[in-house]
């Protein structure tokens, strides 16, 4: 496991996302209200590029005719079959017991700390003035 600096925190505003490649793996990094989450860009159902999917809310119903819409933007819907995953946990809404998408820990680190290492900053220079997103893979 190594820690990889993948973006400046300001690059991904709330509601935004970025797809990055770390050690040959495509990972989608999401900003949900200032909290960052990272998921493997591969749907565990049939291999679609999950992190290119739409971010939707959760539609639930306690009985026919009553519908609730909650957690807007926190569910990720695969571009292929529309399977929904909870961005915070990677858990599948369709098959919660057997299926979850691989998730990675994302931390926000000040540039000052990162400049000392030991981190892998593959694609860009870290400056001390900014905060950065660090993914553990």
């Amino acid at each position, binding site marked *: 496991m190594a820690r990889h600096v993948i973006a400046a925190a300001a690059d991904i505003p709330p509601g935004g996302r970025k797809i990055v490649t770390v050690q040959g793996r495509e990972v989608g990094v999401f900003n949900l209200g200032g909290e960052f989450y990272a998921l*493997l860009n*591969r749907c*565990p*159902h*049939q*291999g*679609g*590029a999950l992190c*290119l*999917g*739409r971010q939707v809310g959760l539609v639930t119903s306690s009985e026919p005719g009553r519908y609730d819409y909650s957690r807007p933007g926190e569910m990720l819907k695969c*571009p*292929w*079959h*529309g399977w929904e995953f909870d961005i915070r946990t990677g858990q599948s809404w369709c098959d919660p017991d*057997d*299926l*979850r*998408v*691989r998730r990675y820990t994302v931390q926000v680190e000040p540039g000052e700390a990162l400049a000392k290492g030991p981190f892998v900053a593959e694609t860009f220079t870290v400056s001390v003035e900014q905060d950065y997103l660090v993914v553990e893979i």
Partner: protein
Amino acid sequence: MTPDDVRVLESGPLPIEDRLRRVDCDVHHSLRSLEDLKPFLSRRWWDHLQSYGLRMPVPFSGSSPYPKATPALSRTDSWPPVGGPPGSDLDFMREQLLDRYDIQHGLLHLLYPCGMDQRNQAFGAALCRAINEWVVAAWTSQEPRLKAAISVPGEDAAAAVAEIEHWAGHPGFVQVAMATHSIEPLGRRRYWPIYEAAVGQSYPIGLHTSGYNGNAITPAGWPSFYVEEQHGVAISQQGVAISLVTEGVFARLPELRVVVVEAGFAWVPSVAWRLDRHWSRMRDEVPHLVRPPSEYIRENLWFTTQPMDEPERPRDLRHILDWIGWDRVLFASDYPHWDMDSPELGFRLRMTAEERRAIYGGNARAVYGLA
């Protein structure tokens, strides 16, 4: 790939020597717009299309009577970078399907427009000819891996036969395509000349769920939800298969090959069992069926896999395949539609190398006479 990434598959990785030479029996190309057909329609019929449009025997003219899950019914990542709807760009189809999954042959089914369900039958015949000219010019002559189906105006059997004979022997075509939501069930005699012509030219009939006939997709009435309609597809194809069997099409034409596309296959045994039971009691009503219906089903019908039936225990599919016959089931992806089955991950059943080769390509090569 770790178990965390992907649910552990029942099938293992594939040795190099078992390279599959996949045949994908349901690939959807599409027009960029109706303008693509302009060079292939006479001035008279192009003007007709501009003035009167496509008119099917169904309300909701100009839109689909059914809700659809996603724009253009397609994977949201399948819109070509060069523009146009999913399935309209050959290069992008190569990238996302043919090259990506090492497809030896992709069998094309055009869903829109459909010549067979046009109320103006002369226009329907002209539209079928234009579609067939276009598919050769824009697809099969550009990409030898792709093979098309001859679109026929099936409600006018004489015109349909003429269309089959016009294209007979052309290397771009491997089957004859008819709409499945037809004015009468497809086993009725008005359609028999088409089947005779197909047998005469050694073409299978490819029945992809398509067309509008004014009937709801299920006999229960109009569905409220797409999830109902999606299942209704399989029910409507059961109706087609039952009609073909009970009307005696296969008793009359034992060489006829019919490929049922996009209806799954797990329902096939139960339909056959029930037909056999009824047939044994009501044989005098259908004395033209000299053999049990299940025998016609297993000898004259083939079924494509998509949308894959996904039992909780993938191995349960084995019982179904054992009954239908491992030589009767053909892999299909349905690219670029949203419910596409991945050529790598769509089948979760553990299969022998021989079974896998049959379903992913060997059976299709046999049915369609492909190399």
